[in-house]
């Protein structure tokens, strides 16, 4: 591990505070990672830019929605912990059926990332929160990165991330992926959520009492049918909704297979994807 390459200088001046830490871009070195972090978000919110900032890779970015259609992987090291970072295709929701959205959804559902960073566009927060709310339905290990704070300021928008964090029940960190603003705060928050130092209480739709009862009844059945499956609650809601894709996945055994496959730390696969992402 060469420690001399490409350190990002923290913007915080205080060297004794815990935020003064060390980010090391590890590029394609994604073997032997300790933690998996996924980048989710709407199209064109700067996920790939953040990915490049953190990993030092040169994943193509472009100012149009849909530039990333496959997932790319890279690595970074923060405070001595190695993270594998997975850049997912941008999606507006997790309920749809196009292929790029499936890639994102399947990874959040079954890839069991230690933390999901939902990258949101500060200039279009409302639309972006739809996805954020859906992600926190699935997992509680979520950090909201409110990106493009610089652009929002230019447009005369002020985003109160504390209010956001309070309402969502998960941390929200203002950043600007392009300038590197807020990156250290984001990474230490991610580390805090993963290590359990930051407790999250994700905001989840409660629904009617009948709905709650139906979900409570279905969850144990799903857990029994597909042992080890994460997010049984979310699957239960999808099944109640009559989601044909989830039904098909359950029937064909695809779901169980996904759980098994995503759990295996297949570094060759990661590497291949990272290389593809680089082109």
């Amino acid at each position, binding site marked *: 591990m060469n420690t001399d390459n490409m350190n990002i200088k923290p913007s915080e001046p205080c060297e004794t505070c815990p935020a003064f830490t060390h980010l090391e871009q590890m590029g394609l070195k994604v073997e032997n990672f300790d933690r998996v972090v996924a980048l989710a978000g709407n199209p064109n919110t700067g996920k790939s830019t953040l990915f490049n900032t953190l990993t030092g890779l040169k994943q193509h970015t472009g100012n149009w929605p849909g530039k990333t259609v496959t997932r790319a992987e890279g690595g970074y090291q923060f405070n001595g912990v190695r993270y594998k970072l997975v850049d997912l295709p941008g999606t507006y929701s997790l309920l749809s059926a*196009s292929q790029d959205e499936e890639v994102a959804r399947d990874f959040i559902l079954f890839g069991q990332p230690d933390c999901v960073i939902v990258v949101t566009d500060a200039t279009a927060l409302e639309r972006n929160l739809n996805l954020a709310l859906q992600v926190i339905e699935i997992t509680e290990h979520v950090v909201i990165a409110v990106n493009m704070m610089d652009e929002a300021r230019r447009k005369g*928008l*002020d985003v109160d991330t504390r209010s956001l964090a309070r309402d969502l029940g998960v941390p929200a960190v203002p950043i600007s992926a392009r300038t590197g603003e807020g990156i250290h705060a984001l990474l230490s928050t991610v580390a805090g959520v993963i290590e359990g130092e930051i407790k999250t209480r994700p905001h989840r739709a409660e629904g*009617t009492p009948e709905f709650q009862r139906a979900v409570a009844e279905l969850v144990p*059945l799903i857990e029994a049918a597909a042992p080890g499956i994460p997010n049984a609650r979310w699957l239960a809601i999808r099944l109640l909704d009559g989601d044909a894709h989830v039904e098909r996945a359950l029937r064909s055994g695809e779901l169980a297979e996904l759980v098994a496959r995503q759990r295996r730390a297949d570094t060759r696969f990661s590497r291949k994807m990272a290389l593809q992402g680089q082109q």
Partner: protein
Amino acid sequence: MNRDGRWQKGKDVRAIRSHPEISREKRNKHVMQKQQPTPEDVIAKAAELRGTLSSGFRDEIVKSLYSEAERIARRAVKHIGERRYDLDQKIDRLVTSPIFGLPIMLLLLAAIIWVTVIGANVPSDLIARALFWVEEQAAGLFDAWGLPWWVTGFVWHGVWRGLAWVVSVMLPPMAIFFPMFTILEDLGYLPRVAFNLDFLFKKAGAHGKQALTMAMGFGCNAAGVVATRVIDSPRERLIAILTNNFVPCNGRFPTLIMLGTVFVAAAFPPAFASFVAAGSVVAVVVIGVGFTFLMSWLLSRTILKGEASAFTLELPPYRRPNILRILYTSLIDRTLFVLWRAIQTAAPAGAVIWILANIHLGDASLAQHIADFLDPFGYLLGLDGVILLAYIIAIPANEIVVPTMLMVYMGTGMMTDLPALSELKTLLVDIHGWTMLTAVNLMLFALLHNPCATAILTIYKETNSKKWAALSVVITLGTAFLVTFLTATVARLLGWA
């Protein structure tokens, strides 16, 4: 617990199932304890539970999601005045206006190509001279060392010459064209292009996002084919895949620019030459886009019937391009990537040509025989046998069609000199009887002919079907033959050629 209960699975469950009067809770409890429920059980249970919910609950889920998002966003975001926003909208109103939208698009494209044409000429010539000088010196050195003639010929007049042509013809246009194209991409102009073209795609029965994948195709058709994943409907996705090749990719742009500069523009006074060159390339691009619509329309009326689906397209804010990143992306990732691919295929192609040109059957070389054989067919298309032979050799990569063609001309002994780019025209016209029809049809053929090997392979991978991959070749090649045949016939009937 499931595992423990497994031994008595069969009998017990049948017993429970055959007693419908057993209450749901009880049955459920039994299933839970005695057996691992099958997916069918889970789905049936879900359907059953769905019946207990009010009918509108699905809409409730979605609606509550939206209202929550709105509520949270309203609390978190404060407006402290609107400044740049207005400018963005003003620009958008202009570049996506029904009247000015399309003309602005064409003007931008024309400007980029024009800058490429005037910028690439001189460096191309210099690089060609330098590399051919190296060939001459090195060949002389090999001769002086007493190496057999065929070693010198194979290495320097075969492989090296192939590389020299590719580098000199392709490098300068790419180094100018790509950064400008990337700037437009970074600014956020591409989604506006999609917006402008949406109504045309809709008329053709295709998806509006096809405009985006088409724009990706200008970079690389294989990448454009992969980008079609953003299209949800399989029908419209297939249309986008099958028609992607009708826009010229990075590899074909230099070919078009060179043909436009050296042949088409040369027929006009020098003062207009660069404009004519850029104009001819833009015309070819417009024809390509036209064929995209035409073929999409045909496909959606025949083998891929259906209506165009609606979609929302986000117009992202304009962003200041990051110059360093643009240079990196366009020069390292695109230019060198394309050039390296071209070199990898050009070297073997050069070797093949040299071998074909130096194995003699009777009184002529193998290359000459094949070219003569293809000549009548080439004539029908307004081309000639050598050009068709070059296309066959260049199937692995479209980038090397023109260099291959020139090498075949030289290899067949018809062109002994090593010309600089500027002298090419005189030689081809005077010795090989090229006409304006040859140049125009060559541009059309370069635009419409089959995808390169990489693109075909990508289509196969994305559709997972040999049928669609084969069809993509048939459609493009068929169009190319048909169009060039028609232009040649019409031009000859009217006495233009």
